[in-house]
């Protein structure tokens, strides 16, 4: 693995390998000393052109627990806010000697562009690009599912599990990465959203599509992943009439959650709109693994950095 840009670039074996490493990373995080010397002497740059405190902190913690040096380069108060282009930023990072760049951008394809433009030849990790992909989020979701439900599959993947993803699929990079990864690992995925919040050609995706949350829940899924409704985008765009109508049809209420099988999990990538797409009592309830997702995010990102940086792959390639 040279870069970590899109789940579409991964084979099932590679995905399982990263999950297995994540497991070992998670194990180290319960020890008395959590810091590992693995990446000592390397420098990881967090290039965050779009604000995201949660993801940035998660990557920063992951890099530091592997003893990498971390440089945070965020939009606010930097040359990025003064209109510096991605190209000039990349050339700067290359000259500074970064060993890997973790990039978050509001532009779909930004990570891909950075990896393939020739401006910089270091490994690139996609920390979310526009409405395209958020592959480490999908890895941590898969990791969380496997930790709880792995016993039901009998494989290293998620074979036979049924996961329902609910909400704004159209604008969700989390949904795109999860559809690819969960299906790659053998899970059955159902997307549930009002029709306007599904891409026109999502019928081609390796998943089922439904407009009816209650019908999807009646199938007894093993997990339900609620997506954040980006209110500012929704109402102005006319995607649905009111928050109340959306919540009634697509919100995960206490009543809906109660109809799930006993073992079923509730996930949310955060940040949540409590009382809108998910009831507060469900988010805090026994099925919820939302807080655990955050902790697992660090382990998964440690694994991704490990796979990109702790090998001779780059030396061989150059």
């Amino acid at each position, binding site marked *: 693995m040279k870069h970590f840009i899109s789940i579409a670039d991964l084979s099932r074996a590679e995905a399982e390998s990263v999950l297995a490493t994540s497991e070992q990373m998670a194990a180290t995080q319960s020890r008395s000393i959590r810091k590992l010397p693995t990446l000592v002497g390397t420098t990881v740059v967090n290039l965050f052109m779009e604000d995201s405190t949660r993801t940035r902190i998660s990557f920063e913690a992951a890099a530091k627990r592997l003893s990498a040096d971390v440089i945070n380069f965020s939009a606010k108060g930097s040359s990025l806010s003064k209109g510096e282009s991605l190209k000039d930023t990349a050339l700067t990072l290359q000259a500074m000697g970064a060993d890997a760049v973790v990039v978050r951008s509001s532009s*779909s*394809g930004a990570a891909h562009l950075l990896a393939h433009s020739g401006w910089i030849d270091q490994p690139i990790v996609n920390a979310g690009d526009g409405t395209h992909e958020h592959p480490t989020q999908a890895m941590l979701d898969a990791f969380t599912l496997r930790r709880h439900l792995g016993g039901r599959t009998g494989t290293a993947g998620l074979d036979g599990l049924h996961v329902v993803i609910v909400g704004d699929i159209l604008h969700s990079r989390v949904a795109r990465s999860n559809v690819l990864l969960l299906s790659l690992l053998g899970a059955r995925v159902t997307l549930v959203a009002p029709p306007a919040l599904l891409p026109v050609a999502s019928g081609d995706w390796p998943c089922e599509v439904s407009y009816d949350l209650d019908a999807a829940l009646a199938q007894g899924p093993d997990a339900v992943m609620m997506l954040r409704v980006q209110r500012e985008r929704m109402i102005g765009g006319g995607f649905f009439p009111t928050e109340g109508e959306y919540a009634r049809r697509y919100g995960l209420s206490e009543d809906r959650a109660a109809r799930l099988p006993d073992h079923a999990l509730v996930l949310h990538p955060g940040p949540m709109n409590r009382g809108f797409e998910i009831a507060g009592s469900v988010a805090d309830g026994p099925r919820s693994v939302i807080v655990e997702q955050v902790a697992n995010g660090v382990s998964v990102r440690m694994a991704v950095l490990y796979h990109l940086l702790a090998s001779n792959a780059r030396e061989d390639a150059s």
Partner: protein
Amino acid sequence: MTTAPAPILIVGGSLYGERTADLLIQDGAIAAISAEGESLEAPAGAEVIDAAGCVILPGLVDLHTHLREPGGEEAETVDTGTRAAARGGFTAVHAMANTTPVADTAGVVEQVLRRGEEAGHCDVRPIGAVTVGLGGERMAELDAMAGSRARVRVFSDDGKCVHDPVLMRRALEYVKSFDGVIAQHAQDPRLTEGAQMHEGAVSAQLGLAGWPAVAEESIIARDVLLAEHVGSRLHVCHLSTAGSVEIVRWAKQRGVDVTCEVTPHHLMLTDELVRGYDATYKVNPPLRTAADVEAVRAGLADGTIDIVATDHAPHPRDAKDREWDQAAMGMTGLETALPVVQRTMVETGRLSWRDVARVLSEAPSRIARDTTQGRPLAVGEAANVLVWDPRPVAAVDPAAHASRSTNTPFRGRELPGRNLLTLLRGRPTVRDGLVLDRSGAPVPGERGPLPAAEED
């Protein structure tokens, strides 16, 4: 003006690809054409060009060129843009109005006309804006532009759609008095807010905001009905979808006075190319699907689509070396147009060279009511002639292009054909692929970006 050039005898070329003939060019006109099976004697002092294996066509005419001057000289100037046109075999280009300032007054269109005359690489016919500043709100002084020395007959807000149906209706009506035409950039602005690429399977995967086919088709449908209602001429720019072809076919069957164009890139390329997020492939209207490519080829072959126009849209490198959603839309096209048409339409047997003369020379001039270009290859006609060698195949190299910009989507593709000779009223503007100045010497330097010091 200049001294009369020596006579030129073009020997052994194939007229419209139909019959072998010799052409004698003298005093800027076609002086003689040999009869079937015969040849012509070279007059004293004549230059003889061996055109065996070549196709003789009327000089090409592009109804849709962005020369960027005034205001966008970092991307292109009238001089470099017309050089690129000459290199592509064009003897006339119609320059779109979306310059800075906008070509919405007689003064600006006359300036563009004059710059074209100074450059001398091909004729430049300015297109006037439909609305003031392309603002889509108030009609520009179309009659003043029509009556100016530039004699504007084509009006377009290209780059933006004349979206207001009342304004579109009034413009269609207004230009009737001088036999003008509105060339519509068909794009519903509300359906394409923030649009980045064709809306379909690829956009869904890439997470790029979709530019749906219906945003083009709904405007074309509305406009053909408006044109029918008011009895006006309508031209549809860069039609790109299968649905658009069907609507125009239907309108023509009803007798609506509508013409339309397709670009070379929509004849060859699909939205699959966007997968690498390389903004070279970002264009408006966007690259569509393989089914759309097939539909526009079929439409061009059966005459539903009247012409090929390049939508040559040069951009400086910095405008393309960006994240996809921040990059500029547009592709250069003048220097690859005929190779693409040869590859997609002639070599596939869908168009003859005679058809090529129609779609790339005669019909565009007729739509623009320009009686000096797109003329038949006949004795007594002005010698606007292209001698095209269809045999050589070479990889497209933007560095060799005369355009100041390098944003060609065909970079590295093997494409056929070579411009052996282009004559503008009898004067060679291109010889062996090299652009010539008025004295007949190759233009120094050919091309190249401005030195950094001059860019500020």
